[in-house]
């Protein structure tokens, strides 16, 4: 056997030395998951020890559960059936107490012969080198190196190589777990940061929209206070009533928003997309007729969507009525509704030939509260804000593309 290049007395063969060096130089970034670590370790074991099978098993209370088996004859990874622990007391004792089970003849070895009928004979295994894997001092698994056919005497280099593989695997899996935990924390941090920003936005919306009404009211009260003329007082009082109604509306919508964001008590159900949209259209039939609008629906017959019916209806209702409300003065409204499935999401497009929105100026505000763009007097600036809230509560997104004078396309991804 050729010895290593560092010293003639080196324990490792050159092959073992090189394979281990590759592993020791690898970084956690080279592996996508613990599973991937198992695959690399079992493949390296099979290659370094010239064996047919290498596997890693996790020890559960009453059984051994195979995590990965590499078969070097087929070159494939698979999973072996569980093995019951109760049939293997000596094998377990050896794993718990030692650093390796070195069995040159598995059928007579004191610790491995228990596996004879259950495992060794069915798989034709003749020699085994099994390494206990510990976490925090406690036995949690076993790395099994299994040789077939001709009798094999494991060498000192084989043992040291396999033991080193076991240790590297422990290290890498630990790092992998830590990385996963870090990613999870980062994800949670991003979510809570986003929620916090949303909350802050919401606070400003509330303060702004409530304040605009209450400040009007306090100015009106000052005016009432300042005049002795009854007729003038009456006029101001009328304004006060109007302001109060607006304030009530604002609070009503804010309440609505909160209940949407808190999540609906209704749960998602499977709906047929086409019949659901047709149902919404029935509800807006009056305005469609009045405005001479044409609605073109091109939806696949059997397409289904999992959604909360009332939210979905509200989204479609708002998009369709908006498309009609902001029609071009030069032509009758034509609205097209299409849908497709991409990446397990449903993409619904609602396009119109209306006045369009100047997205260059209004990009950041279109889905905000009390934002109107057309100087249209009956625009209250709540529709798209509520629509966005409904879409987000369903876990979706909404975007818009528009050209002034040509029309807009709203894209809802659910």
């Amino acid at each position: 056997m050729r010895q290593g290049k560092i010293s003639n007395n080196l324990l490792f063969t050159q092959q073992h030395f090189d394979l281990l060096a590759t592993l020791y130089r690898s970084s956690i970034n080279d592996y996508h998951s613990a599973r991937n670590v198992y695959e690399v370790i079992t493949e390296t074991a099979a290659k370094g020890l010239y064996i047919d099978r290498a596997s890693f098993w996790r020890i559960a209370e009453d059984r051994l559960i195979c995590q990965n088996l590499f078969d070097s004859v087929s070159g494939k990874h698979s999973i072996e059936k569980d093995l019951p622990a109760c049939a293997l007391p000596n094998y377990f004792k050896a794993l718990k107490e030692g650093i390796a089970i070195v069995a040159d003849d598995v059928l007579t070895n004191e610790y491995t012969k228990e596996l004879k009928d259950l495992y060794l004979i069915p798989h034709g295994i003749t020699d085994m080198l099994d390494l206990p894997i510990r976490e925090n001092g406690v036995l949690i698994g076993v790395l099994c190196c299994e040789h077939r056919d001709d009798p094999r005497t494991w060498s000192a280099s084989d043992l040291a190589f396999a033991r080193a593989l076991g240790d590297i695997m422990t290290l890498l899996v630990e790092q992998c777990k830590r990385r996963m935990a870090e990613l999870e924390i980062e994800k949670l941090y991003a979510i809570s940061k986003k929620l916090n920003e949303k909350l802050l936005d919401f606070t400003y919306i509330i303060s702004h929209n409530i304040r605009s009404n209450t400040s009007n009211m306090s100015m009106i009260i000052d005016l009432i206070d300042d005049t002795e003329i009854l007729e003038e007082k009456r006029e101001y009082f009328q304004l006060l009533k109007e302001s109060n109604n607006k304030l009530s509306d604002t609070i009503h919508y804010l309440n609505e928003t909160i209940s949407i964001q808190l999540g609906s008590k209704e749960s998602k159900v499977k709906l047929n997309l086409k019949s659901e949209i047709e149902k919404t259209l029935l509800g807006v039939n009056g305005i469609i007729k009045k405005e001479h609008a044409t609605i073109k629906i091109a939806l696949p017959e059997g397409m289904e969507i999992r959604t909360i019916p009332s939210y979905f209806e509200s989204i479609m209702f708002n998009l369709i009525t908006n498309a009609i409300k902001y029609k071009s003065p030069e032509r009758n409204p034509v609205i097209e509704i299409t849908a497709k499935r991409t990446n397990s999401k449903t993409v619904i497009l609602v396009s119109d030939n209306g006045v369009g929105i100047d997205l260059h100026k209004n990009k950041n505000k279109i889905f905000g509260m009390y934002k109107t763009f057309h100087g249209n007097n009956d625009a209250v600036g709540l529709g798209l804000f509520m629509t966005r809230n409904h879409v987000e509560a369903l876990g979706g997104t909404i975007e818009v593309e528009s050209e002034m004078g040509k029309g807009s396309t709203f894209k809802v991804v659910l």
Partner: protein
Amino acid sequence: MQQISQIYIIDDDDIFVFVLKKLLQKTKRFHDIIDVRNGSEAIELLTVQHAANAKLPELIFLDLNMPILDGWQFLDEVEKLPFKDELKIYIISSSIDPKEIEKSKEYSTVRSFVSKPVTMEWLHKISG
């Protein structure tokens, strides 16, 4: 008593505009009160007045949250006007967002940021 010749109110809230006009009239210092519903109309009006060599408004009361051209966009447009230094703008908004108050300081044309409601005392102060 000092008199203000002309003032613009740029705001889309009808009730506020009505009430503010009443208050302005009560001070007896403001005579020519012009109200427009958004920044775009105001820019147009300013440009026309300047082109006709008419006197520019002495004061501009500007709301932030408006359709078409909002308060910030109006201020950005004002930056491009050759006569911007002749304008005295007061932002009058329901906002109490410190970020917006801070942002208003970046515009040399903005005299101050006032949170609604507007009081008679304040109107007397700025016209005095």
